[in-house]
């Protein structure tokens, strides 16, 4: 259990560090769209929580549940935040529109790949448990 906690902590710290380092770089782009920074913060928090829970419940069926939930959350977040894929913001009488459709498509496809992986993990876990006779 101590190893799982340590692993979860290290991974959470790494993800947070990645966010902490990358966020200032893309901040000029993010501040153009109102509410985007808050939305991304919410995404990072939920993502890290699900990741930590998944690591803490490793070698149980809940590990697969949390992994699937995380993949589904990423897909849902992208689907809700994308809408038509266009981010439009107005500064005085200047209108700026950024078309993020292609970027979101790539991200959604990667998330689907992640979801497929978690489903395969669950199937593998259940089959291994069936072979060994241990209850999941």
């Amino acid at each position, binding site marked *: 259990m101590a190893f799982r906690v340590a692993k979860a902590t290290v991974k959470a710290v790494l993800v947070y560090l*990645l966010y902490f380092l990358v966020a200032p770089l893309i901040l000029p782009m993010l501040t153009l769209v109102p509410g985007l920074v808050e939305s991304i913060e919410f995404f990072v928090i939920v993502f890290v929580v699900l990741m930590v829970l998944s690591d803490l419940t490793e070698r149980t069926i809940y590990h697969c549940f949390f992994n699937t939930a995380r993949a589904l959350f990423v897909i849902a977040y992208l689907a809700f935040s994308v809408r038509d894929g266009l981010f439009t913001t107005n500064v005085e009488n200047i*209108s*700026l*529109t*950024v078309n993020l459709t292609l970027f979101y498509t790539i991200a959604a496809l990667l998330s689907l790949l*992640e979801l497929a992986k978690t489903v395969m993990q669950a199937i*593998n876990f259940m*089959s291994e448990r069936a072979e060994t006779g241990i209850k999941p």
Partner: protein
Amino acid sequence: MNVPIRMLGIATTIFWVILAGFIASAGYSLKDLNFSIGEPQFTTTSDRDMVLSLPLYVFNGGFYSLKGFNLTTVFSDAEGAEVSRSSTFVPTIPHGQNTTILHNVTLNMDKLAENDEQYLFNDTSLNAEVTAGLNFAELLPVQLSTNFTFPWGAPLYDLTFGQPRFRSLSRSNAAVTVPISFENHAAFDLNGTIHANLYDKDGTLLAESQTPLDVSKGSSYAGNLDFAVPLNTASQASATGGHIELHFSTSMFEYGPVVMPIG
């Protein structure tokens, strides 16, 4: 099955890292991207077009080239009717380089006067809609649009005629002089002629005159239209309400007739 799952995990992680790296570098590149606009220049062409040249200076200090830069300017009148549409397309703005883009907006005076002759006589404004689009980092299409009003200076602002003056040239002939004045508020010099016809009350042409025109932008013009007419006819025209028709023939536009009653 563990190996394929692990490989799938590694592959997705690599792709996520590449995507995150791309977003970070694209966002970081934005801060090294500078756009500035130079002083607009007005020129005229032999086709009677007024060309507004707007220099754009782009310094792309980011990591990625900007592709398909397209700048479109649409001028429309107060009723929303399109007066002019100009586009400038630059296929690539390479990274790490300064690029100067010259955006030319063409306004045809004949077309403007055809739409509404008030553009010749009254100062007004045109609505300008500017749209700029480009492909940032080859993945993110970005579009920027704005609109503003563009002040329009009339070339024949405050066109007025004075009282006709008559003077006898001989027993049978008289000279009719009509003072004319206006201000050239346009962004171009006015060179050409004023062709004037003097008619009596029945619409019969009595005399013609041609006056050269050379009025710099932003300056006033005050001149005379001189006609030589038979003495009795001149008196008759002034007394019984004849009229003068003016035709402007300049390097920028042809316009006429402007009808001025006399008498």
